[in-house]
């Protein structure tokens, strides 16, 4: 295996050429229909593992977060093939924004004061609430007050699990699992009586083909989680995104997206709080 010196040089030259081309970027900008889109792509952080919200299904991305993200991106002047989807797990969201790894995040990202210290938010585009998922024929669990002595499942380290520990410790048996899909499996086998997290996440889980018709969301949310669009602290896109969300609600696309992504889950979103009016931008 001996290559001549010229061969090595040629390989080096080829590599360099490739690298330089990659850096050149595309200068055929101005492809967008309105301000903001300049032909470059936009990096949007979503969840890849939450059916009904943000889910990677082969090469397809589906879910409510994805639909809202597509609509907002379109309003900002990006076509669908200019969107570069990036996985943003809960624990990484703040860091991905502050390190400029994504331009915006649509990933069941609740607006909280703590998070506002490090990132900016547009929206909310949905107000979820912690709720319970029970089997279709269950009639005795109508809210958190019916949980006494019952077994409950949530995800290790999640806000929902902590809420149960803080408020219902001692009366509720909490199983913590690595993911909500595991919780739904245990619910299906009867190991637990209910699964708890945000209502729309539960609806998304219950609406998958394998679970359709087996479970129902109780519909008695006991917290308020405002899902916002995570932005870098210095972003100037907040107002444009809020306008896009308002437009999405007005032209019916918002309602359509919710219905489409929760079909089969026997779920109705909290109508007192939804569709939400975006907060004023900072």
């Amino acid at each position, binding site marked *: 295996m001996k290559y001549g010196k010229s061969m090595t040089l040629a390989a080096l030259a080829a590599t360099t050429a490739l690298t330089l081309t990659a850096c050149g970027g595309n200068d055929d900008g101005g492809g967008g229909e309105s301000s903001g889109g300049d032909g470059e792509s936009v990096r949007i952080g979503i969840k890849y593992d939450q059916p009904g919200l943000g889910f990677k299904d082969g090469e397809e991305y589906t879910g409510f977060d994805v639909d809202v993200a597509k609509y907002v991106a379109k309003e900002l002047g990006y076509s669908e093939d200019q969107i570069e989807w990036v996985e943003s797990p*809960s*624990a990484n969201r*703040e*860091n991905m924004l502050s390190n400029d790894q994504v331009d915006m995040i649509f990933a069941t990202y609740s607006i909280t004061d*703590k*998070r506002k*210290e*490090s990132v900016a938010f547009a929206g909310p585009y949905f107000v979820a609430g912690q709720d319970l998922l029970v089997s279709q024929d269950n009639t005795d669990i109508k809210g958190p007050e019916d949980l006494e002595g019952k*077994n409950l499942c949530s995800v*290790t*380290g*999640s*806000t929902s*699990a*902590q809420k149960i520990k803080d408020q219902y410790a001692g009366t509720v*048996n909490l*199983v*913590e*699992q*690595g993911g909500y899909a*595991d919780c739904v*499996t*245990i619910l299906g*086998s*009867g*190991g*637990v009586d209910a699964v708890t997290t945000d209502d729309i996440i539960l609806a998304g889980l219950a609406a998958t083909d394998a679970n359709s018709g087996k479970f129902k969301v109780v519909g008695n949310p006991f917290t308020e989680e405002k899902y916002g669009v995570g932005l870098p602290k210095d972003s100037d896109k907040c107002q444009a995104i809020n306008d896009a969300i308002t437009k999405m609600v007005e032209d019916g696309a918002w309602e359509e997206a919710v219905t489409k992504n929760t079909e089969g889950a026997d779920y109705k979103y909290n109508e007192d709080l939804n569709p939400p009016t975006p907060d004023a931008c900072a």
Partner: protein
Amino acid sequence: MSEYLSDYASLLSQYDVLGAFWVNIQLTFWAAIGSMVLGSVLALMRISPPASMRAVGAAYVTLIRNTPLTIILVFLVLGVWSQLTISFTDDFNQNFFIYAVIGLSIYHAAFVCEAIRSGVNTVPAGQAEAARAIGLSFLPAARLIIFPQALRGAITPLGNTLIALTKNTTVAAAASVTEISALMKTMIEFRPDVIIAVFLTVALGFVIIVIPVGLLTTWLSQKLAVKR
């Protein structure tokens, strides 16, 4: 900097880090006993005269040693607890602790078995022959002659297994045990502002727990070595 330190101090007062590490130590303690007992039996089987016993021992080691620990624990919770609804105690959380100890013991027994077997190999064949010559059958020979020498020769690999076990207790989060890795996930969720400090705290905690184990096994392996 001082602001970061006060944020970190508030993290420690907010979450029971020591309590969570204590759960890991308890898991280590019980699983060490469980895997030592099961591993000794397996090692005995693997050096015993009947070929069928040797085959069972070898099959167990091959199967369990090559199965990821997470799979064993998830199987115990999703399969045995959730589908077969087997409970060991009425205390809901204690039940998962027991499941975790069982899973850790089953897994590490395979490694303990191999560690002891490597110790058996340090015992000269003449020892076994002499035991037979004075009329001892297999079990008394193993108990009185082979194992006491083998265990002394196996201290270093056993110590390695104990260290691996200590760190593997973090997988018990998969079995719904609230130990340090589960608490770490909670801290990351609620305190992303001090995320680096959270990681370092957990890492440092394990270093503090594991270093004495390493020192102890090194010292013991020298002190107890069979001088030949």
